[in-house]
C-alpha cells in the first residue's frame, strides 16, 4: 500500500489540488458527465478490453462536457487511449466551445487518408495543423497526450514526444472531447488535469 487516499496519490494534503478528472469508459452506460454534440451514436462496447464507441455522422460530432470548461489553455494535460475502426477521422482532445468550429481547440486529427497524424490547434480566430513526421494513421489503440503550456502545445503518441506547436493556441477554458468525423472511434481511458 503506497497511499491512504486517492487524493494523496497525486497531491499532498498541504496542497489544494487542481481539477483532475479521469474516465474509464466502463459500465452499462456512459457517465452522465458527457453530453453529445452533433449527430452520432454513442454506445458501450461489450468486448474484452474495450470501452466506449462513438459513431460520428454528419461531419464533426463528439461527446464533451457541454461547455463546462475547467481546464487551462496554458497549463493542462489531456491523455486518451483511442483507436479508429472505420475510415475518415478520429478526433479527440480539448476544445473551448461546443459545435464544429476549430477556434479554441487543441486536438488530435487522425484521418485515414492522410499520410501522417495531425495536431490541430486554434486560437480565438484562426486554426492550423502541425503534421507528424513519422506517425501514420492506423487502426491500433494509441495513447495520445496533449500538454498545453504557456509557450507551446505538445503532442506525445505512445509515450514519445511527436509534435511541438507554438502557433494558434487556445486562449479560453477547455473541455475534453472524444469523437470523430464521419467515422467510428473507440475510447477506453481519458484523463485531464491542470498543472
Amino acid at each position, binding site marked *: 500500500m503506497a497511499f491512504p487516499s*486517492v487524493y494523496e496519490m497525486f497531491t499532498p494534503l498541504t496542497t489544494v489540488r487542481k481539477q483532475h478528472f479521469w474516465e474509464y469508459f466502463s459500465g452499462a452506460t456512459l457517465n452522465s458527465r458527457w453530453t453529445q454534440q452533433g449527430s452520432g451514436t454513442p454506445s458501450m462496447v461489450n468486448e474484452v478490453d474495450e470501452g466506449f464507441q462513438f459513431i460520428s455522422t454528419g461531419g464533426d460530432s463528439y461527446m464533451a462536457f457541454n461547455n463546462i470548461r475547467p481546464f487551462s489553455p496554458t497549463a493542462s494535460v489531456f491523455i486518451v487511449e483511442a483507436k479508429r475502426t472505420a475510415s475518415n477521422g478520429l478526433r479527440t482532445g480539448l476544445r473551448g466551445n461546443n459545435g464544429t468550429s476549430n477556434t479554441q481547440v487543441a486536438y488530435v486529427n487522425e484521418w485515414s487518408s492522410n499520410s501522417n497524424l495531425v495536431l490541430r490547434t486554434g486560437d480565438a480566430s484562426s486554426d492550423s495543423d502541425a503534421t507528424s513526421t513519422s506517425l501514420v494513421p492506423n487502426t491500433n489503440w494509441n495513447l495520445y497526450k496533449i500538454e498545453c503550456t504557456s509557450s507551446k502545445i505538445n503532442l506525445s503518441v505512445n509515450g514519445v514526444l511527436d509534435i511541438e506547436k507554438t502557433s494558434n493556441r487556445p486562449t479560453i477554458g477547455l473541455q475534453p472531447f472524444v469523437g470523430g468525423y464521419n467515422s467510428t472511434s473507440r475510447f477506453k481511458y481519458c484523463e485531464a488535469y491542470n498543472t
Partner: protein
Amino acid sequence: MTKSIYDQLNASGTVAKQRTVDTFSGDQIDFTQWSTSGDFGFNLANNDSSEFYNGGGVILKWYNANPVAGREGVLAYDNKRQFSPTNFVWIMNCKWTGTRTSGVSRFGIKRYSDGTFNGGGVAGATLGSDNAKISAYTTNETGGQISVVASTIDVDNVYHNYKGARSGSAYTLLIDGVTSVTETNGYLPVNASQPFLYCYNNDTTHHSLNCNYLEVYNT
C-alpha cells in the same frame, strides 16, 4: 511500477473497505449517485475567469435571484449509508463565497440526506455564521447536541483542503494538511453515514459553497 489503483491504496491480500471519489468534473453532477433535497440549486461551476483553473467542481448556491432567509439544501447519497460513524476518513476541497453572516455551509458525512439539516449524526466542517474560524462541526445522533470547535484559521473565500477523520472516540478536522482541531464535547454520530454538502441562508444575500474533490472511505 504498481499497475492498479487498488494496490496503491491497499496492502497486498487486503479486502478494501468502501470508498467513494468524485472529482465533480463534466457536464453535470451524476444524479444517479447524488440526491438533492431542499432549496439550493446545484450546478457544476463553469468559470471562465482565471480562478477556475484551480476551481471548477460543484457549486451549491441559491438558484433564485432573491435569496430567502431560513432556506437550506443538502446534496447527499439519498440515505444510502455506506460509511462508518466511528472509523472513517473524508477529504474535500471546498471554498466558501459570501459574507460570513449571510449563511453557513457544512460538509462531511451525516446520517440523513433530508433538506432539514438537524436530523442528527454529523461529522464535518463548517464555514460561515457558525464561527469566525473554520471549525469542526459534529452532532449527536438526534442532532440536539451540537459541537462547534474552532481552528485557528479565519473563515475566508479561498479553497482549502479539509480532512475529517475518526478512529474510535476522537474526531479530528485537518485543514490544509497542517492545522488540526479535535472535537472535545463528545457529540458524535453513532449510525452509518453518507457524504454531504450543505448550505443555509441566514438572510437575503447570496453565498455559496464550491467543492472540486470529495473522497470518503472506511478505515
